[in-house]
């Protein structure tokens, strides 16, 4: 699965995207796996209320299922316009 990071999430984790082998059932499970890896992941995901997630390029919630997903992206609240 491709995992993408944007804005300060990208900066904190230190890379824009990576391939992740996972059997996580939900986005939240994936987050727990990533947090367990290294301190920079734990720091980036410390406060989920400050984060947003998209699965296959659609905004969703952290309890969304990952079955069939090819791409998950984490980022802060958007500031377009």
């Amino acid at each position, binding site marked *: 699965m491709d995992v993408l990071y*944007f804005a300060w999430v*990208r900066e904190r984790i230190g890379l824009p995207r990576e391939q992740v082998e996972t059997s996580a059932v939900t986005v939240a499970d994936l987050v727990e796996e990533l947090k367990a890896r290294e301190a920079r992941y734990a720091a980036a995901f410390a406060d989920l209320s400050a984060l947003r997630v998209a699965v296959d*390029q659609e905004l969703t919630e952290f309890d969304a299922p990952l079955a069939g997903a090819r791409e998950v*992206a984490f980022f802060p*609240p*958007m500031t*377009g*316009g």
Partner: protein
Amino acid sequence: MRIEVQEAPFDLGRETSDFASGHKDMGAIVTFTGVVRDLARGDLDRMEIEHYPGMTQKALEKIAAQAQARWSLGDVLVIHRHGALTPGEMIMMVATAAPHRKDAFEAAEFLMDYLKSRAPFWKKEFTRDGAEWVAAKDADEDALTRW
């Protein structure tokens, strides 16, 4: 409907004029243009706008389609830039054409409210002293409750 996500500047005058022309049944044209504001301290060197290439176009199309489903619109235009911009540069524009002004105004405001908080763009401000990500405003999230 036309949605453009681009790094290059756009010509607001030409876009507005082209959009407004040739809609004989549309009595009302509304445009919104967002411009990079300098900081209160007057020391903004540049703003850099990051986006999510795979998602941005689709997200904007979805927002525009929602506006078209909700209001009687003849046409919708969204142009949003990414990359580095300096104070005074135009970041983005939306335009709506409708038979009546209420639809044109409301749809433009709806597009802006959703674009602010639901389109995958992130702004970072650079000054001589460093760089900071622009924080999302509660007011922008609250604005969505209107719709």
